[in-house]
C-alpha cells in the first residue's frame, strides 16, 4: 500500500447524498478478478451516456477535475454494498482523499486498506469546502495527514480527526496482515482458550453431515 503523508490536488465537488457503491461501481462489472484498471467503470451510469461517450455534465469529465485527487461529497458517502471495487476504482482514477460529513462504515474501512484517506468533517465545514471545490482550476487543496489539516484554496487550515492507529498505518503504508502476523502468538493463545470454552466451533466446517 502506498504511504499517505501529504496530498495537494484539485478537489471535485460531488454534492449527492447517499452516494451508493452501486453508483460508484456498478455490480455488473464486479466480474473482474483483478483490482487494477477499474477506473474505466467508475461512476459508469452518471459519467457516460448510453452510447458510451462521456457525459459532459458530470464533474469528473470537466477539464480541471479530470486530474482531481480529492472528492468533496455529501452525507452517507459510500453506502450500500461492501464491494472494495469502489475504492479500487477511485484510486485507479487518481482519488486519494474523500471529504464528506459522514461515511458508510464499510466503505470508510475499505478506503484505509487502499491508501485512500476518508475525512469526516462537520456539515457546515463540508458546505464551505464544497463551494471551494466548485472553483475549477482554483479548487486546489492540500491534505496534511501528519498535522491532520486540510488547507483550503485561500490558505485557511481546517483540522480533522482520525483514529491514531489508522493514521499510523496510512503514514507508513503499513500492511494490516503483516501487523497482525506479529501477534500470531496472541492469536494462538486465544484459539487454545476459545477451543476449551467453545469446542463445537472448531473444525466445524469440516465436520458436517
Amino acid at each position, binding site marked *: 500500500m502506498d504511504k499517505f503523508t501529504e496530498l495537494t490536488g484539485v478537489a471535485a465537488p460531488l454534492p*449527492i447524498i447517499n452516494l451508493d457503491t452501486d453508483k460508484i461501481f456498478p455490480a455488473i462489472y464486479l466480474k473482474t478478478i483483478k483490482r487494477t484498471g477499474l477506473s474505466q467503470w467508475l461512476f459508469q451510469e452518471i459519467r457516460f451516456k448510453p452510447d458510451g461517450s462521456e457525459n459532459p455534465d458530470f464533474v469528473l469529465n470537466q477539464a480541471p477535475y479530470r486530474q482531481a485527487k480529492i472528492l468533496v461529497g455529501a452525507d*452517507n458517502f459510500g453506502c450500500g454494498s461492501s464491494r472494495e471495487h469502489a475504492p479500487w476504482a477511485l484510486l485507479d482514477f487518481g482519488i486519494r482523499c474523500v471529504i464528506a460529513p459522514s461515511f458508510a*462504515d*464499510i466503505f470508510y474501512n475499505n478506503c484505509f486498506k487502499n491508501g485512500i484517506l476518508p475525512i469526516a468533517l462537520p456539515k457546515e465545514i463540508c458546505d464551505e469546502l464544497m463551494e471551494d471545490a466548485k472553483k475549477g482550476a482554483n479548487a486546489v487543496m492540500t491534505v496534511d495527514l501528519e498535522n491532520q489539516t486540510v488547507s483550503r484554496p485561500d490558505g485557511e487550515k481546517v483540522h480533522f480527526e482520525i483514529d491514531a*492507529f489508522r493514521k499510523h498505518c496510512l503514514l507508513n503504508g503499513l500492511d494490516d496482515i503483516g501487523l497482525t502476523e506479529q501477534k500470531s502468538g*496472541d492469536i494462538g493463545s486465544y484459539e487454545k482458550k476459545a477451543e476449551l470454552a467453545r469446542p463445537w466451533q472448531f473444525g*466445524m466446517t469440516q465436520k458436517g453431515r
Partner: protein
Amino acid sequence: MAQPRTLFDKIWDSHVIAPQGEGTYLIYIDLHLIHEVTTPQAFEGLKLAGRGVRRPDKTMAVADHNIPTVNRAAGVAGIAEPDSLLQVQTLERNVKEFGVPYFPITSIDQGIVHVIGPEQGLSQPGMTIVCGDSHTATHGAMGALAFGIGTSEVEHVLATQTLIQAPAKNMLIDVNGTLGTGVSPKDVILAIIAKIGTAGGTGHVFEYAGSTFRDMSMEGRMTVCNMSIEAGARAGLVAPDEKTIAYVKGRPFAPKGAAWEQAEAYWRTLPSDPGSKFDKEAHLDAKDIAPHVTWGTNPEQAAPVTGRVPDPADEADPLKRAFIERALQYMQLAPNTRLMDVPVQRVFIGSCTNSRIEDLRAAAAIAKGRKVADGVTALVVPGSGHVKHQAEEEGLDRIFVEAGFQWRDAGCSMCMSMNDDKAMNGERVATTSNRNFEGRQGKNAKSHLMGPAMAAAAAVTGHLADVRDLG
C-alpha cells in the same frame, strides 16, 4: 456488581484477542463465509505473499452471485458468460489449492451464502461471522455478530482468522405488538428504515427487541436482520431464544451430543442483561406498520402501499430535495402519484432477503388460482437447493408454474443481476430483494422493494397492489 452488558457487548468481549492501538482491537472470527465475487483478489494477495488460509475449518465457500438459475445440472460448464465462468472457476481453483470446504453448484447444499449459513447450522448464536458481502447481517437473526467486509479484510481473515476493528455502539430497535393481516417482516424492516433513515444506524449494531421480533419466525428475523445495512448499521442481532435453539438443533453442522448440551447452555447466557444501556433507541408500534413498497432509489424511500409518491417540494433541505428529485426522475414517477397506480413489467421473488421457504409459501398463497398479468414476466428463485426441494415437496412450484411464474434454481439472480436474470429496457420491477439502487437490476431498471406476498400480488394484478385486497 458487574455492569449489565448487551448481546453485542458479550459477543465482542469474548472475541477480543488484544488491543491494536488506540480504540482498535484485534478480534477473532469464528466463521468466514466466502463466495466468488469478493475473493479472487484476496486469494491472489495470499499467493503473492506466500500465505495460506489459517483456518480452513472455519471457512466455507459457495458460488451464488454469478451462476445461472436454469440448467443447474450442467454445472460450471453451464455458465455461458465468460467473465462469470472465470470467476466461478477461479473460486473452485482457489478452494482446492487452499483446502477450503466448498458446496459445488450442482449440490443441493448450494444456495445464497446468507441462506445456507443458517440452513446448514453453520451460523450459530454467539459467533462472529464475516463475509465479503454487506448482507452478512442476515446471520444476526441467529444471535451472531455478523457483518460484511471488503476484500482486503477477506484476505486478512483468510490469513489470520482475525480482524482489526473498533467496537460499534449499541442501538435498540424496539417493536411491540402483533402485525396486522398481510403485514410481513419485510414491511417491518422497510418501516424501520423509512423511520430512522438509510444512515440512521451508522457506527451502530442493532439489537431487534420487543414482542414483534419474539413472535417472529426465524426466517422473518433473517429478513429483518438482512436489511440492517440498509439503515447503515454494521450488524443487526436478535437475542437467541427457544426458537433459535430449536432451529439450529439437528442441522448438518450444528453441534451434537455433549457438545450440543454445552453449546445450548452457553447460548442461553447471551441475551442482553436487564438494564443494559443502548447508545440510541428507536421505537415502533407493530399496529402502525402497513404493507410497504419503495418508490425511490434508496431503501429509505419507502411508504405504505396505500400512499402516494412524495412531492420533493415538501423537502426543505436542498441536497435531500435534489436526492428525491433525482430518484423520481430515474423512477419516472410524478409527485403525488398513487402507488397502487404504478404498473410493473417484471417481478422477482428471491434474494438473501426473501427466498426462504416461508417467503415462497407467502407468495404461493397469493399466486394460487390466479394468473400472472399480461405483459408481466415473473421469476421465483429459491434461496438454496434445499429450499427448492422443500418447496417442490409442498407443491409450491406447481402453484407458481400454473400461475405463469418461472421456477428457477437457487442463486442471487436478479437482486443485482450479475447473471442473465435482469430487467430489460428500463422495465419496472416488483422485487423482494434489498436494494433499489439505480441500475442494480438492469440498465435503467426501476426497482420497487416489497415483501414476497406483495410481489406476488403485483405479478397477478400487473401493478403495485395491496396484498390485503387479494385476501
